């Protein structure tokens, strides 16, 4: 039995019992801001940053190119997502259309803010985000 087989055996065993499915699919979000960008080339997340009304207007004018698609899950709880000062949806978000550029984002569960900041998405990307509850 070679070394690769020895290493793969526990994994195969775990998978066969469905034990390793969740950890392999997505690692838990450990970022201090409470939000992790798991997938999406060129996506930037600035925790705690804000966009003023004037900046938002400016951003809206700049938006060009194909929309991005946002997938967002909340680990261990629920919450609603607010984008650019308005209610967007309640998690989970699946292929939520987001214009390219910077967006003011807040995720909250009632009075508790789970994550907030500015999310910048390039045109046409699929963005995978997880938020820790």
């Amino acid at each position, binding site marked *: 039995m070679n070394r690769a087989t020895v290493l793969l055996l526990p994994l195969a065993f775990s998978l066969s019992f469905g034990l390793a499915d969740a950890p392999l699919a997505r690692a838990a979000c450990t970022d201090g801001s409470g939000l992790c960008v798991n997938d999406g080339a060129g996506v930037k997340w600035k925790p705690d940053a*804000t966009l003023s*009304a004037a900046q938002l207007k400016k951003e809206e004018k700049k938006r060009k190119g194909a*929309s991005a698609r946002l997938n967002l899950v909340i680990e261990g709880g*629920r*919450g*609603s997502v*607010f*984008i*650019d*000062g*308005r*209610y*967007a*949806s*309640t998690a989970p978000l699946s292929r*939520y*259309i*987001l*214009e390219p550029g910077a967006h*003011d984002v*807040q995720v*909250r*569960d*009632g*009075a508790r*803010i789970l994550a*907030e900041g500015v999310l910048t998405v390039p045109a046409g990307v699929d963005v995978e985000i997880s938020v820790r509850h």
Partner: protein
Amino acid sequence: MTWLRLPTLVLALSLPLTSLPAPASASPLTSVWAAAKSKPKKKPKPASSEPDNSLSAAEAEEAREPVQAQAKVSADAGDHLAAAELLARKARELSDPILFLDAATAYKNAADSKRDRALIALAVEEARIGLDILNFMQDARYDATWEVIPASQVSAESSRGRELIDACETLDEALQRESAAGSGDPPKPAREPTPKDGRGLIAAGSVFTVVGLGGLGLMGAGIAMGVDAQKTVEDPATYGDAFDEADAKGKRGNMFAIIGASVGAVGLITGVTLIAIGAKKRKKYREENPVAQLRLTPTFGQGRGGLTLTGRF
């Protein structure tokens, strides 16, 4: 005075020019200018799912009222679920916290009427979304141009949302109790303790008696075998192997008789004793606990037969 002629001529020519009415249609020059100023029309952007609900409080109320009226019709007809589904759908379309709370109320009423805990979960979630929005409306990131309800109502609606969640939890506990009471197996009737009426003694005595009778039977068979063998042995014509065989049979018969007698004696004595004690006990028990007496008697008649159960209560 010739020096005055030139300015007078200029004035005379300029006045009619400036006082002329403006042309009705744009001159070729202005058309070109206008064309230069106007930009080519942009292609319309594809619809975005980003929020575009820049409602004022008055506009939001105007949009909300027909939804509430329609939901009320369903609720008044007893269809709380239809009312809840309508309110929840419109709440999402308008991002309206009041409609979310209305949907929660309707789901709670549906849960109450249908006694369905799953609907309570929906009610709680609708109320929570409403509270999410109401809390966000007090945040610095909130877009003030999106005034879906007046700022003065936020606090009152938040209280309503929290009370609604409390009421849902109370209802859920009540339904949980109902479910636990309903799903449990009906309590088994407590098994009546075996009456101490000597039935055990009588049963044991009967067994011993049967065994004793068996022993007596064995004894009888043994004696018979022994007598038969004795006759054979005493016959002068019997000798050799036949004699030995009869002798062995006699011994076997004696052994059976002894064993049978022993078992019979012990069995009968024990059995009869137990039956006697049991019968005495039963008599005493019946005197102390008079119960219904049932009697099963065979009945026969012309062309028929059966059993008759008679009782005295």
